[in-house]
């Protein structure tokens, strides 16, 4: 179940699955780890996605045929790779009110109370399948269908940074101020992308996100700490439930 194709003259795409699944995601993580260890000359970087890894490389240093052969060889040793444990990054979220103007809409759409929406949303470890869309944006899997809600009919022109939203059966966090049609249920003071930080990107594909409910006061305290540079989101080793 490994298919390699040329993707332009500087790209090589490795398909590792056909559907979105944890199993495929594990294969992608394993291959990414192999690529990191192998340091094949000519490879510039790679983009892991739901079902594939696309490598960008310099054809002056390595041709498509040679790189394809190296990847085929590498994929054979992939099975032996032991993945490091996945981490869960805690994202504090202030739900409802000004932070989450659509919380009630999500609740009434699903016939549950606002509190239930929060309990369902905050009680899950979401797998980060891939990053994309905007710098630092995680594509999360695993949201309960019980709180799935269609996008707004008319998208908002400006969504504040850190907004936590629902679109269909997906949930996510806006890393930048952009227009968007997601139902906003809360907001986090934690910045998913900050180019002035030593690690500009907070999250990584293959890890998990857990939303933790906080009050407005806690939101302000954390925000102040972030400004002083003294706040680090909690991280722990992921445990299958």
């Amino acid at each position, binding site marked *: 179940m490994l298919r390699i*194709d*040329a*993707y*332009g*003259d*500087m*790209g090589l*795409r490795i398909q590792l699955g056909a*559907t*979105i699944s944890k199993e495929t995601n594990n294969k992608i993580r394993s291959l*990414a780890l192999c690529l990191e260890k192998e340091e094949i000359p000519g490879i*510039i*970087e*790679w*983009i*892991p*996605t*739901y*079902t*594939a890894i*696309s490598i*960008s490389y310099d*054809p*002056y240093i390595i*041709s*498509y*045929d040679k790189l394809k052969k190296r990847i085929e060889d590498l994929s054979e040793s992939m099975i032996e790779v032991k993945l490091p444990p996945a981490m869960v990054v805690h994202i504090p979220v202030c739900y409802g009110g000004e932070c989450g103007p659509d919380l009630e809409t999500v609740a009434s759409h699903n016939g549950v109370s606002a509190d239930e929406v929060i309990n369902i949303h905050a009680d899950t470890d979401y797998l980060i399948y*891939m*990053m*994309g*869309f*905007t*710098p*630092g*944006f995680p*594509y999360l899997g695993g949201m309960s269908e019980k709180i799935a809600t269609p996008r707004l009919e008319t998208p908002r022109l400006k969504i504040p940074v850190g907004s936590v939203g629902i679109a269909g059966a997906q949930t996510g966090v806006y*890393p*930048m101020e*952009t227009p968007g049609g997601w139902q906003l249920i809360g907001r986090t003071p934690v910045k998913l*992308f900050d*180019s002035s930080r030593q690690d*500009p*990107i907070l*999250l*990584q*594909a293959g890890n998990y996100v857990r939303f933790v409910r906080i009050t407005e006061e806690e939101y302000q305290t954390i925000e102040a700490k972030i400004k002083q540079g003294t706040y680090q989101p909690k991280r722990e080793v992921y445990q299958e439930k």
Partner: protein
Amino acid sequence: MFEVVKPGLTTTIQDLGRTGYQQYGVVVSGAMDAFALQVGNILVGNKRDEAGIEVVIMGPTLRVLADHVIAICGADLSPKLDGESIPMWKSLVVKAGQTLTFGKPVNGGYTYITVAGGIDTPLIMGSKATYTKAEIGGIEGRSLQKGDKIAFGKPSSMVKAGIGLPIRQIPDYRSGRKIRVILGPDHDAFSGESVERFLSEHYKLTSQSDRMGSRLEGPSLSLLRGADIISDAIFPGTIQVPANGQPIILLADRQTTGGYTRIATVITVDLPYVAQMLPGNELAFEAISVEKAQRLYVEQELLLQTLSVAAGTF
């Protein structure tokens, strides 16, 4: 140093892009015409990946505050120094007190002012490239404004005026040549007839084109299944086809991933010809093999290396 008297349409600082962070969703950005920027840098004794000033269609007015060796490479936007036309693809001296202006676009949309010593702006995640949507790179992450001062680094000792690109190597952006592509990764999702149409008909560049991508208008391409795929990687020159059947060629400010079906990817050496098209221009595509595309890439790389050696900047 230069002072911005008039900012022009969208004048930005660009290098070869912010690579290495695409797996985190960070847009690469960088020069729309990477060949022109690299040649410009070579001519003024810089490293090829140094940043330059990207000028788009309506150029800025820049006051020269100190003597510098510069080059202007890319589209002919009628550059003038104190009102006198100046040559392109050739290094020249500008003196304190002079004013650099631009006029009518003659043969494309993007040109690069490179200055000996390079642009003195901070590296953000390894690059000086401006990506205005995330407000990073260049000067405060934005396009230039009136009153901005652009500072330059220390020139290499080899720098001199009068170094030019051989005329036969100057790209002819208006040649109407076919844009060469490598089919895939999703061309199987189109009907055979649609792939044929894509490779035989003409497409026109629409005005909804920018640093993110070129939107084309022409014979509709039909998909066997829906237009959406599971979100996947995008590279420079990737041609997406959304449900309306009209292709979009993704360029410097493209997102790293997308959910539309990809019929083909433009080969690297032809990307400048796509970037330099103006709204209303027509183009046609031709499919070639990966081997051939990579041969052309290596040829261009060798040309740039030879130029660097000749200019003493290798």
